[in-house]
């Protein structure tokens, strides 16, 4: 089963509904033994980085996530879950999990769109992902597919961790990580068929991962 880390993130039930629809066994949980025996972890998130880190620390999930990553348990971070895998977020001046080196920064409203108008913040709506490195999560997903984004801050990891970029005024990193540890800025659970396919690909990766229990 996939464990959806329970720290009261706004979208955890949406992630659950998408996994249920796909027939993927899953549970919303913060129970360490359930998390340790799960095939993989989904780290959801909506809202502010400071509040999210506060909840993680209050539940002890911050340590548990680090342990699980050390033990090579597959993990997929979504939105704020993607952002706080980094070292730091400008949002609420938050020291984050520091699992992937880099920081999360506010969109610059001086950036302009293709018509020359300043970009609106938040970046809200559908946009593409240009893969900069091959990634099994995107297997079978057409490159012109779009995903649903809603965020005011974007991840800016060290260059070697950038997997995909999206253009909003300027290109920014929308997928980062490495094998078995991925983070997506968009919401796969709300991105129609391509998003569901990505979740399914993650599950299949977890099933193939012989290291997992």
């Amino acid at each position, binding site marked *: 089963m996939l464990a959806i880390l329970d720290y009261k993130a706004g979208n955890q*039930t949406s992630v659950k509904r998408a996994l249920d629809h796909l027939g993927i066994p899953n549970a919303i949980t913060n129970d360490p033994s359930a998390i340790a025996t799960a095939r993989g972890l989904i780290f959801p998130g909506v809202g502010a980085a400071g509040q999210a880190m506060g909840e993680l620390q209050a539940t002890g999930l911050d340590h548990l996530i680090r342990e699980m990553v050390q033990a090579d348990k597959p993990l997929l971070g979504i939105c704020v879950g993607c952002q706080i895998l980094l070292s730091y977020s400008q949002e609420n001046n938050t020291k984050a999990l520091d699992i992937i080196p880099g920081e999360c920064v506010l969109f610059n409203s001086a950036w302009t769109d293709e018509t020359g*108008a300043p970009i609106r*913040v938040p970046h809200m*709506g*559908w946009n593409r992902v240009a893969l900069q490195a091959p990634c099994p999560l995107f297997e079978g997903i057409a490159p012109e*597919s779009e995903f649903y984004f809603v965020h005011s801050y974007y991840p800016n990891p060290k260059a070697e961790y950038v997997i995909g970029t999206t253009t*909003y005024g300027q290109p920014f990193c929308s997928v980062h990580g490495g094998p078995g540890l991925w983070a997506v800025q968009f919401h796969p659970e709300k991105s129609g068929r391509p998003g569901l396919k990505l979740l399914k690909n993650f599950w299949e990766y977890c099933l193939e991962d012989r290291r997992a229990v």
Partner: protein
Amino acid sequence: MLSKRIIPCLDVRNGRLTKGVKFVGNVDIGDPVESARIYYEEGADEIVFYDITASHEGRMAFLDVVNEVASKIFIPFSVGGGINTVEDMRACLLAGAEKVSVNSGAVKNPDIISQGAAAFGSQAIVLGMDVLKVPVSEAIPCGYEIVIHGGRTHTGLDALDWARTGEALGAGEICLNSIDADGTKEGYELTLTRMISDAVTIPVIASGGAGNPDHMVDALTQGRASAALIASIVHYGTYTIRQLKEHIAGRGVKVRQVW
């Protein structure tokens, strides 16, 4: 590059659509869940449900609809109608909606915007504005007034001022409905749409008046809206969402075409 969004709006009373939606073969569907599912398959970028129920029983039926929609469609959807308190918002978000839209509830108590944004994040709070063109006056310098109760009650609020207030209070998006254009099928109110879009940095959804896909292009270009809300143009089977998107893309506006 961000796509412009095409958003069908479904009116619900006591858990059923107020007007049936006609799909291929003109089959009339009164079920909001099934209609939403078909629009999802057709490529809607988002869906809006508007509850026009007055009774408690009707409200419960509406929340059942929201819950069922959330387990069948995997794009964002928002709900509006009768949201007056943070508890109303919580009930809709827990049932599976991404966003809630506040309209007259925010006029009566603007603090609900900031309370909602603090509790659920700005991205979850849409300010719905019903707007009527009026003579320019000292009280309404922009010449557009906020109205409630479907346009029957004037509020004395200047639309431009109210949009800025809503943004400052923490609304993540504005759904801007022109009462003058609504139902005319003669096009969106472009002057209003452009004025509000230019005054705020949050996304603006244009609403009211869509009769053909060129109207939508106008709202998304001249009006500078981020999204276009549509109703009868798709509910009566005049166009499918795919047809609308093909036309809009053909006019050089980026919309999502693969789903």
